């Protein structure tokens, strides 16, 4: 029989890397114990050594370890855990994990399974947004076939973008500027979506040409009370993967910002959303309109920039809310100050088309100092395994102004020494030094269409 959990509870951490370490430390800071479930590849890592207990779930392959909900919940029950934090990625947005936890009497640190399903399906999420009167690009419900797609696109007006109902990350997304392009790409998009998500259902939206990705961090109390922690601008992306995120979104006027926050809160309040979530919007710089994209029903990679400007600890807030230590939060207690930027450090080589670079880190010397935070589970000597996401650290800086934050980020990147593997740090330095970034005139396609071609030319290829 498992021994009894301490009075504040015992948390099972069902993730790896920096977010697992972050959840372990947050739990310990609140007087909870933390049990980490790892794959064999992570059994000697910093997370395994920091947790009160670590159990090896299975082999390195995520399918038989981090992606096996039954194994994870069995481990949580057998180690006497009272709550489970899913982190991001892996099973964090699978209703199945939340359901298994409920069945076994373990508190899932996240939304209800019903909410996860409702926001996870993009078409039902659009219906939810429509009902809550949140602005959206003109779009469709499920599209049946090419002929149906062409008819709907004609009504919406080109350019249009296809999207998979079952998931994101760019898979199933095709931009079409006319009927020929749409007809030519539609079937392939269905196939891609089916392969990625097991469901090839697509819908179509009007495509916003020059857009920024702006999202609002919220926490709901599960009873209709929803508080926001400001917004983030995540427009520096490559293949729909974010690389740099900022808070606040300096491009917004105070009036638009207030409307954006209000829309995000209204949307999640309408479904009695529980725990941390993010509402993502596309922002049209020219018209100053914003359009609902999707809800992420979990803590996100880039949550630290919101923490930096609000002073909140969002992971601790998740735990306090889930365990009943607090009933909710009050908007009047959330204030923002200054500007924060996060750069994702990934083990990929920008000189070789972002080829993943797993391997042994022989020297790890991250920057430190005023306004600098590094979230990572990496140390000198850490082996970066080839099986998982390539993000190895997050560098977060805070300054009184955006300009000060950028200067801090540039200096911190210069101070960041990683030896043994290639990373994107050289590319991050070029981005941060670029005039367009400094003047904040970028958009979601800037990295791929402006910066990377120049970067490659400079590298002599």
């Amino acid at each position: 029989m498992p021994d009894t959990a301490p009075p504040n509870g015992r948390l099972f951490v069902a993730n790896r890397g920096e977010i697992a370490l972050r959840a372990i430390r947050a739990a310990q800071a609140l007087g909870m114990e933390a049990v980490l479930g790892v794959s064999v590849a992570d059994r000697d890592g910093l997370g395994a050594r920091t947790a009160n207990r670590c159990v090896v779930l299975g082999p390195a392959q995520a399918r038989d370890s981090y992606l096996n909900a039954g194994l994870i919940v069995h481990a949580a029950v057998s180690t006497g855990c009272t709550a489970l934090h899913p982190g991001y990625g892996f099973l964090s947005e699978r209703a199945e994990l939340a359901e298994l936890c409920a069945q076994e009497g373990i508190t899932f640190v996240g939304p209800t399974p019903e909410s996860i399903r409702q926001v996870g399906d993009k078409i039902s999420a659009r219906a939810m947004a429509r009902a809550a009167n949140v602005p959206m690009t003109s779009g469709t419900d499920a599209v049946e076939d090419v002929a149906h797609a062409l008819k709907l696109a004609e009504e919406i007006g080109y350019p249009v973008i296809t999207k998979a109902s079952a998931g994101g990350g760019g898979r199933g997304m095709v931009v079409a500027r006319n009927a020929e392009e749409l007809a030519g790409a539609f079937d392939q998009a269905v196939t891609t979506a089916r392969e990625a998500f097991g469901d090839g259902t697509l819908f179509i939206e009007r495509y916003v040409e020059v857009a920024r990705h702006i999202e609002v961090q919220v926490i709901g109390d599960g009873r209709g009370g929803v508080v926001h922690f400001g917004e983030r601008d995540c427009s520096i992306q490559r293949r729909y993967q974010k690389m740099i995120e900022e808070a606040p979104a300096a491009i917004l006027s105070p009036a638009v910002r207030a409307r954006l926050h209000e829309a995000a809160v209204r949307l999640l309040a309408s479904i009695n959303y529980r725990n941390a979530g993010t509402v993502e919007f596309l922002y049209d710089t020219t018209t100053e309109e914003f359009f609902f994209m999707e809800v992420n029903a979990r803590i996100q990679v880039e949550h630290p920039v919101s923490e930096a400007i609000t002073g909140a600890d969002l992971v601790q807030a998740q735990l306090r809310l889930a365990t009943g230590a607090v009933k909710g939060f009050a908007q009047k207690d959330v204030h923002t100050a200054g500007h924060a930027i996060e750069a994702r450090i990934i083990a990929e080589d920008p000189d070789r088309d972002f080829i993943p670079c797993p391997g042994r880190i022989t020297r790890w010397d991250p920057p430190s100092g005023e306004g600098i935070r590094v979230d990572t589970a990496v140390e000198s000597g850490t082996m970066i395994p080839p099986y998982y996401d390539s993000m190895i650290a997050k560098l977060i800086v805070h300054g009184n102004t955006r300009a000060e934050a950028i200067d801090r980020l540039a200096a911190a990147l210069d101070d960041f020494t990683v030896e043994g593997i290639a990373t994107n740090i050289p590319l991050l330095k070029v981005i941060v030094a670029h005039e367009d970034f400094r003047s904040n005139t970028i958009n979601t396609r800037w990295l791929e269409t402006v910066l990377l071609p120049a970067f490659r030319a400079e590298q002599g290829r």
Partner: protein
Amino acid sequence: MGNISTNDIQSLIQLFEKSDWREMHLILGETDLFLSKDRNAQTQISLTTASPSVPAPSHRASVPATPVETPDPKPHGSKIPAGWTLVKAPSLGTFYRAPKPGAPMFTEIGAQVAADSELCLIEVMKLFTTLRAGTHGTIREIYAKDGELVEFDQPLFLIEPDA
């Protein structure tokens, strides 16, 4: 550098498995690693691989135990004699030595086992997997207690081969 971690060994094993090599012998500082795809390979330390994944949960799936002889005898720090087989857990789960409560144990220390002898059950959320000996011999050690949580790769049984 004389230290080689579990991760390194794992990566080496994977590379080796993918290669068309039959044997690989690596001496690095204190570490002496011998990999072979031939079960009868003659050497003082042999390390056979192929960690079995538990087959998708049918109600009582059965996995052959992986005969893993290891140079790193974790349990109780005792040395594993050459040629003996350490049977490890194919997945995390609850370890059961009997088919049901009150029933006789599958096996005991000193018992003879054949390759298809059942050694224990590993339970994950009410799904039971039977672990078999995978080799002929005598049970010399049972490392886990009935009803206890065992982790993936944890040594469970030590089997001395028939002479």
